[in-house]
């Protein structure tokens, strides 16, 4: 996790958005929905999640949101962890130059290969 607190807040808001987007996607997927229903879970209030998403978008930095949406349009997960200096989205090792970017106070780090937003596993 980046040490800069403003950046951390921005990243955390994007984390919230991705968590919510996964929830919405899984609740809208007919196959997943039916398998959860068979387990005994009902999903009657998808509209509430959509409303929560609208509210959440207002808290997100506009540039960050554009970046997230651009990635999310082509890839399932826009935000992925880095482990052992490897992007866990595309499994390509990050160059040392990219790793040093984590000290840049304003920049969300993205993978040079797949473009996903990266965060560090602790």
């Amino acid at each position, binding site marked *: 996790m980046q040490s800069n607190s403003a950046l951390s807040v921005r990243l955390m808001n994007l*984390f919230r958005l991705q968590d919510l987007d996964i929830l919405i996607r899984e609740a809208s997927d007919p196959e997943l929905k039916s398998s959860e229903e068979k*387990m005994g879970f009902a999903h009657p209030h998808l509209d509430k999640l959509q409303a929560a998403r609208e509210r959440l978008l207002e808290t997100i930095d506009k540039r960050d949101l554009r970046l997230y949406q651009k990635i999310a349009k082509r890839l399932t997960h826009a935000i992925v962890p880095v482990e052992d200096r490897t992007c866990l989205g595309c499994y390509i090792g990050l160059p040392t130059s990219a790793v040093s970017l984590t000290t840049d106070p304003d920049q969300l780090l993205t993978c040079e290969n797949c473009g996903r937003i990266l965060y560090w596993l602790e």
Partner: protein
Amino acid sequence: MLVVGPRRAWIFSGVEVRYVSESLREVTTILHYFDPNLFCAELESRTKDDVLRELTDRLVQGAGVKDPDLLYDMLKRRESLGSTGIGKGVAIPHGRSLAVNELRVLFARSSAGVEFESMDKKPVHLFFLIVAPPQDKRNEYLPLLGRIAELVKEKKVRDKLQACETFEDLADLLEGKFGAVE
């Protein structure tokens, strides 16, 4: 905790360490997702929101989860979609979140019972919190959710879960259950 190697597995159940052959791996699989640090014999909370917060906090303490608020928000939103109280005194709050790096399962009991907006309106006494990272490399999350939901359909199992005072009781139950069935 079960550490699975290519040809063998070791089970750490409390202080007991035993070797299990590869052929037995399947029957013990469900236990391997449970953790002595993620066992709560008695929840303090009495309301749904408080229980979600307490389950979150216990997961954070027991498993070193990154951000409790992120996890709590996800669980709250999952509940707003529809209660995970599946009836007969059981709730299985679950979802995927960047707050965790690996699949986590927490078991908790409430002898008083908690109103959890369950389908049958009955108070919940048994909780399984299941949280997975967005990328579930081994595709374990949904099968585990399904197995736990199936397991608690049996009254005999629910009664035994209710009687679990320690993690060892739970481990014995889960091992015994699947050892006998499969």
